[in-house]
């Protein structure tokens, strides 16, 4: 295969942690948008499915120096490292070609009908962004769930028992935006015409979404901020989700440095 210079579009997200209040609206909006299932008893959070997960981290210092930061975590939509060979970890391990790095959008797809449920990708994902369906979603707890399928969005196919699911950057919203553009006789999308549900819902406007390949888009400008970082950047997975934090301890924790290992390992050494 010839070497590709990059994607036509490269959709990405910037989350400003200084603005995030940890309210969890993004999680709710995401679950409702994407037909994420719930169980009859959701009290065991370890088993809940959350495409957008909210983590809470602190600086580990005792009161009064304690500082807390909330960390929304969608799928990072890891990319090629540009030197060939290196992909998104999940894509490179999938035995069924059920997950793909879309060369035109940079979105990592997940085709539920194709997934055989081996959970290799779940193990490979360093961000815990992939979830396994241990139960049949909406059909499993009848009669409680009777009629619940009517609340589903027809734009996102529901998942069955035994497959992996994850954030798709609300891919159906991209198709929706494209359809609208076609009706208006254009092919290219304007900025913010395609944004994810979490981006739209965030009351603090902490999330920005756009095309990282387009220098005019807000996301491209935001990632030039000196406080921008990505999660576990040292793994060289090239996430397309960026974070901004003015606090140094947050930036350091995001790469999980050991106490005596302050500098990130550069991609070339791996």
């Amino acid at each position, binding site marked *: 295969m010839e070497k590709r210079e990059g994607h036509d579009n490269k959709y990405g997200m910037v989350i400003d942690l200084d603005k995030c209040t940890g309210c969890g609206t993004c999680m709710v909006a995401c679950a409702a948008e994407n037909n994420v299932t719930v169980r009859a008893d959701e009290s065991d959070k370890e088993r809940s499915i959350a495409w957008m997960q909210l983590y809470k981290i602190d600086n580990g210092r005792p009161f009064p120096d304690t500082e807390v930061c909330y960390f929304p975590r969608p799928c990072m939509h890891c990319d090629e490292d540009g030197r060939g060979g290196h992909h998104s970890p999940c894509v490179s391990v999938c035995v069924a070609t059920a997950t*793909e790095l*879309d*060369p*035109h*959008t940079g*979105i990592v*797809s997940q*085709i*539920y*009908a*194709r997934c055989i449920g081996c959970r290799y990708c779940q193990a490979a994902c360093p961000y815990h962004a992939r979830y396994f369906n241990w139960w049949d979603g909406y059909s499993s707890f009848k009669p409680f769930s009777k009629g619940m399928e009517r609340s589903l969005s027809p*734009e*996102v*196919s*529901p998942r069955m028992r035994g497959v992996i699911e994850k954030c*798709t950057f609300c*891919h*159906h919203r991209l*198709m*929706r935006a*494209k*359809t*609208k*553009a*076609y*009706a*208006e*006789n254009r*092919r290219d999308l304007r900025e913010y015409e395609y944004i994810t549900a979490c981006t739209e819902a965030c009351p603090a406007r902490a999330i920005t979404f756009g095309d990282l390949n387009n220098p005019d888009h807000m996301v491209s400008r935001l990632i030039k901020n000196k406080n921008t970082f990505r999660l576990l950047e040292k793994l060289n997975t090239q996430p397309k989700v960026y974070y901004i934090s003015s606090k140094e301890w947050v930036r350091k924790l995001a790469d999980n440095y050991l106490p005596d290992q302050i500098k990130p390992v550069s991609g070339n050494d791996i």
Partner: protein
Amino acid sequence: MENQRDPSGKTPGQGPLLSLINKIKALVKTIFSSSFKIGLVYFAAGLVPALIIGWLFFPALLYSKQTQPMNFNHALHMDPEIVSEIQGDTETERCLYCHSFRNDGTFTGIPEIGVCSECHKDDDFPLGESEEEELLINEYVTNKREIPWLSYSRQPDCVYFSHIAHIELGKLECTTCHGNRGKNQVLPAYEKNRISGYSRNIWGKKISGLKKDTWDSMKMDDCAACHKEKGHEENNACFTCHK
């Protein structure tokens, strides 16, 4: 191997090549022997019914037939002599009278009852004398009920399809994918796969899966083949057609 000598100096009794030829000879002999012929009869007695079951009975068993709630006559509505309101330069434009696009580009699909009642509105003055129209007005138009049509071309749940991309950008005719559905006078029976629940139109009527016309089947391969043929291979990434 053949010219390998026996250590005792004698020529070996039979080389492997020779024994193979002998075996083939023996096989030919048995084929013409009576016992083998009987075997062949038994084999055919098993195979032929199996083929009949597989090619004739199984498809009949696999698909359940359902009738539509009422008949719809496309040919009549497309005839400008009878229905003058439906106009347009091309056939596609005339189809879009009922199968229209919304402002946001989405496809309305099978028209809602509101489209029918533009013309079939009054039970005192029906457009014709047919019983079908009476049923339409009495059952659906006056009660403002949607007609529960069964969709022949509806794809599985996981498939995303965009009519506007194919009709406005791709400039394709409805016939390419739907065949002569726009010219039907009588609706065919809706056939549903008992195992998958999908309409038979996706796999196609031909159990062999061989295609003569572009609309014979609409499986994943059929979509991808056309995208390749039309030079739109960028649309063959999983997330173009799946959701």
